[in-house]
């Protein structure tokens, strides 16, 4: 690696990229994670959506 030292100017500028991450953002993301973990899983959501679509199609056909 020694033969390819990075451009320090670019590295210094890239190191200044930081997230605006504060306590409020931490808590809101944690709440969102817990909600996602408690909620139905992706497969269950897809199954429920398919059932709802089938029901809708059935009711439209019946009319």
């Amino acid at each position: 690696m020694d033969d390819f030292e990075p451009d320090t100017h670019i590295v210094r500028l890239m190191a200044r990229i930081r997230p605006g991450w504060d306590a409020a953002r931490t808590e809101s993301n944690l709440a969102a994670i817990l909600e996602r973990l408690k909620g139905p899983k992706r497969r269950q959501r897809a199954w429920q959506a398919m059932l709802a679509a089938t029901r809708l199609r059935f009711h439209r056909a019946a009319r």
Partner: protein
Amino acid sequence: MPLLADRSCATRFAQRLRGEDLGGVVSEEQQLGDLFRRYAPYVATIGIRLLGRDDELDDLVQEVFIEAYRGFHQLRSPDSVKAWLARITVRRATRRLRRRRLRSFFSLEELPSDAKLVDDGATPEEKAEIASTYRMVERIPIRQRVVWVLKHVEGETLDSIAAICHISKATVQRRLRAADRSLRMQKERQGDPDGRLRT
């Protein structure tokens, strides 16, 4: 930044997920909360440096911790929780970058906004220069970019990058050389003699 161990938090979390009795003192949610509060800023920092935009960051951080929560039993040692989170972050961010590149190829996505890359303390000139630098880094291939950011910006060692990216040390070195060469060429093409970037 070395990969520090935080044994107590991770061990308690692992015990809880394995169903071991912790005396009912702390709930699973509290354990996840502890882990999240401790490591979310670290995950977010890697995430924004790889993604280069703030608007996808919340989604990325949530995905990382959900994957971590669901796969915690795969973690061999609680000591390596930080490296393990970094590995998930890199994998998820890479997936997003590939998707973004594909979308931009079909012109479905606009160029990333650079308004929120740095804190409010930076002057408009500094913000513009940082955004310009990121755009230059963004032009190098995703695999090379990930390795370059981990090495030079995050300060990881070659061994830890190899572990995080699931590649050999030789591959890490090869990608680093390629990334440095590419950045140097771009800079030369811009023709800036004193090393400052045009914004």
